[in-house]
């Protein structure tokens, strides 16, 4: 990376902020802190951070509201900190433009991986890295070819579109609605059963053990994530 990336941490809990500051600084990031929603919006405006880590349960302005406001002004990647059992909040945040989420309690390794993915997608223009590889799978988005262990894998057009969308966002969670809208069109955003069938088909063609997927991961109640090689 050319320069140290700046991360804005928004959380009202001092121990969480302290943890993130310590861990992220150690990873070579500059860390800014905000304790509330309004402060976060101001800081995002003023400091122009490279990434925002945002707690959804803020006391003053809800995290959802912060995303709404921030998204109107900038495309800075936002990673949401959420709790389990709040799948609805996660989906809402993602649909509003948040880039990813981490469920509290989280491991720092997991968070750092998400941050890296998000920053890479920010700094890399799409298609810059035309061949995606993960394990023995290689997807060439330019040639529209999918190979597994060097063997060409035959995919239907929709299967390929779906895989392409996942590959383009590798490492990022994609909501059902997002994938449906991108692959099937905006009219089909509620037809989750299509998606499920195609994911199943993709897994059976691409996963070594479709029963225990290692590549196309299910994010329960939210969507899917393609495991990022890097």
């Amino acid at each position: 990376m050319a320069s140290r990336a700046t991360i804005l941490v928004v959380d009202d809990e001092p121990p969480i902020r302290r943890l993130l500051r310590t861990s992220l600084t150690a990873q070579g990031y500059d860390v800014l802190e905000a304790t509330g929603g309004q402060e976060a919006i101001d800081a995002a405006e003023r400091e122009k951070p490279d990434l925002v880590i945002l707690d959804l349960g803020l006391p003053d302005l809800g995290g959802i509201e912060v995303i709404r406001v921030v998204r109107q002004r900038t495309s800075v990647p936002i990673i949401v900190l959420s709790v389990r059992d709040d799948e609805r909040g996660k989906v809402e945040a993602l649909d509003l433009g948040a880039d990813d989420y981490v469920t509290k309690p989280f491991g720092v390794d997991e968070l750092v991986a998400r941050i890296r993915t998000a920053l890479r997608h920010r700094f890399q223009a799409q298609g810059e890295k035309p061949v995606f590889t993960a394990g023995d799978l290689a997807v060439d988005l330019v040639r529209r070819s999918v190979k597994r262990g060097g063997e060409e894998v035959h995919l239907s057009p929709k299967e390929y579109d779906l895989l392409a969308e996942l590959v383009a966002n590798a490492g990022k969670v994609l909501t059902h609605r997002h994938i449906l809208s991108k692959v099937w069109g905006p009219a089909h955003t509620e037809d989750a059963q299509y998606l499920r069938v195609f994911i199943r088909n993709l897994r059976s063609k691409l996963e070594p053990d479709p029963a225990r997927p290692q590549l196309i991961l299910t994010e329960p109640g939210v969507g899917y994530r393609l495991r990022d090689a890097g």
Partner: protein
Amino acid sequence: MPATDRPDREQRPSPEALLEAAVQEGRGKLKIFLGAAPGVGKTYEMLQAAQAKRRDGVDVVVGVVETHGRTETEALLAGLEVIPRRRIDYKGHTLSEMDLDALLLRRPQIALVDELAHTNAPGGRHPKRYLDVEELLAAGIDVYTTLNIQHVESLNDVVAQITRIRVRETVPDSILDHADDIEVIDLAPADLIRRLQEGKVYVPHQAERAVRHYFKPGNLTALRELALRRTAQRVDEQMLTYMRQHAIRGPWAAGERVLVCVSEDRGCAGLVRYAKRLADRLHAPWTALHVETSRYHRLDEQQRDRIADCLRLAETLGAEAITIPGARVADEVVSYAQANNISHIVLGKSERSRWFEMLHGSVVHDLVRGAGGISVHVIAGESESEGTLPAKTIATRAPAEAFDPIPYVITAGFIAVALGIGLVLQQFLSVQNISLVFLTGILVSAIRFGLLPSLFACVVGVLAYNFFFLPPLYTFTIADPENVVALFFFLSVAVIASNLAGRTRDQVLTARSRARTTEELFAFSRKLAGIGTLDDLLWATVYQIAAMLKVRIVLLLPGDTAGIAVRAGYPPEDELDEADLAAAQWTWEHNRAAGRGADTLPGAKRLFLPLRTGRAPIGVLGIDRDEPGPILTPDGRRLLEALADQAAVAIERIMLAEDIDRARVTAETERLRAALLTSVSHDLRTPLASIIGSLTSLRSYGESYDDKTRETLMATIQAEAERLNRFIGNLLDMTRLESGAIELKPEPIDLAEIVGTALQRAGKLLAEHRVEVDIDADLPPIGADYLLLEQALFNLLDNAAKYAPPGSLVRVAARREDAMAAVSVSDEGPGIPAADLERIFDKFYRVHRQDRQRAGTGLGLAICRGFVAAMGGSISASNRRDRSGAVFTIRLPVSADAAPELMAQHG
């Protein structure tokens, strides 16, 4: 022996019964071989039993056995260790006695001590052998002994009467009562006498004559009966003890039955109580009987009340109350008693005058004469009755039937017909005989309509006869004096006959209505017995009373607060105003009638009566009818009381059942609360302890640790924190379940996918296990909530990881079962004890094992069940058949909308 007072609601083992059992523990057991007379073979039997025990490896030793030189008995001694007797010199004789101390020192399991009633030689420790036996028993040694019935203390007199020989050596009854086992050695008298004649019975020479007299068939039969009966009594008591220890309620089997005769006499209540005491003493069932003769119709209301009240009193005291019709009281009582094996009849001393008895005969005398073998207890009437059975304070209305002209019109018609026939017959019959035609008409109307219309018929008939047939015709005057006499007799016969016929009709009607009432009461009680919920019961009660008495009714029960409230009514929309509620409350508090027609608060619209059982007041009945004046007829009130009694008992039954249920729920709640506290404090603190311990260790000494140690500590911290997180997740899930805050988002779910997700999340937990997934490829999607089902599966995997040893195989399989899909998780752990298979899904229930308790929360499976049930599925636990291990199976319906699948597949 057990005390005689036995509370009726005994449900738990009574303290004295348990105490008795405790006293028995640690003591040796006493077995008595009881015989009716010498020579029946007691010693022989005892030795046979002892040999059998010895063959079973029991340590049996002979303390003392008198064989009296009988060879077959001596043969049985072979192989048994005999403790040498102690020699005692007494007045020049050498007597040999059982050596108690040697026996105590030897401490066998069973000691044989013959002839329990034996008197020891002076100089021994105890004067009597049974005291030696007591000491052996107290030392924990079982004793086999023999005893003849004539030696039992309480039977001493009886035996002396039978045999004319008084036995000096006796043992107290308590020995028999405390014996653990009594075996009657029974021999038919004829066989015993033959044995005597064959010289097989030991007879001391000096007493030979007396003994010959003793062994007469009559004596032996009587003694035999005594022995059997005494043993039977002992068996009864044993059963009683057993039933008390195990809290089994009656009926208490006993040969005795008590019958109490209920009449209108004032002392009747005392009589009933006496019968109750007698029945209690005898542990006997009892019956209260009222014989309803024709006299019943001449009794005043107060007397009828007394009979009804006495019968009800008897019923509340546990008797069966019966009313039978009959002509003569004594005959009916005796025939009932004989038909029902009654052994005791209780009746009151007559209050009637000597004249009455001379005219009608005395019931007591007739009964005593007719009773035969039945004991008759004649009890002086206690004058307590007025106090114990309060006089009725409720005004009742006469059962006045409204004047109905129709019978009179029809009666006039009969007479007109008679007149017509008379005019026709006039050609053939004499004038005097024509009167018979009129008499027929009068009788018909008497049978048809009763007394008053028939008297009317008499008058009309006589006038018509006079007018149309007696000269001078067509006047009411009579010329012939002979005809005056004839007319007079005609009138007399007509009045007497119509009177008789009318009364017969009344009796028939009464009997018919009684039969109907009885039938309805019976049907009602049968109906009540079948009802399980309070609301249904109250409804049935009010409906029945309203229908039978033609009244409006409300039924009030105590509510949660101090007051009582309407719980049922017929017609159902009835509500109480302030005055009525006050009257109802007064009735409830004072257990007496109030309201319209009663002494208290007569201004209320309704009459309120307490609803009570023998135990306590249950509630209040309020009745009301549209017509002014008192609400009930005397018959109606008696009927109401009968109905109310039945209802009260039934209501109490259901309320008790509900109480028990409530108590159970409370206990369960308490258990859960305690379990929650234990679980929360244990399951929260344990991981925290590890975390804090590891952290402080790292901070303080981290620098001195090598990398591996640091890594171990940090791994511990992470694992324990994750465990804590899972536990909190479980607590939250449980809370959501219990508060009903589960939001279902059912969608068609691919089982392969969801199993994959759950396995992915459980990856770390199952790191040391092998995992196999076997899901039918053509399994259709199931309809469920993704997150709930995933959590349920995760909990099952978590459970398997916890209980199955590392390295073993955890298998997740899914297949179709008709309209359901079944997902099962099976492990190779120790499995689930059969007794726990159902309870394992209970909150905070953990399978307890000998080894340390696994680190479970007792919540995971409860959550599984809650979630799966919320999704309309089921979960079950079983054990593997092929090897040890548990199998948990979730069954969920296959998704209904599988159609889009196909579209998507081809799209």
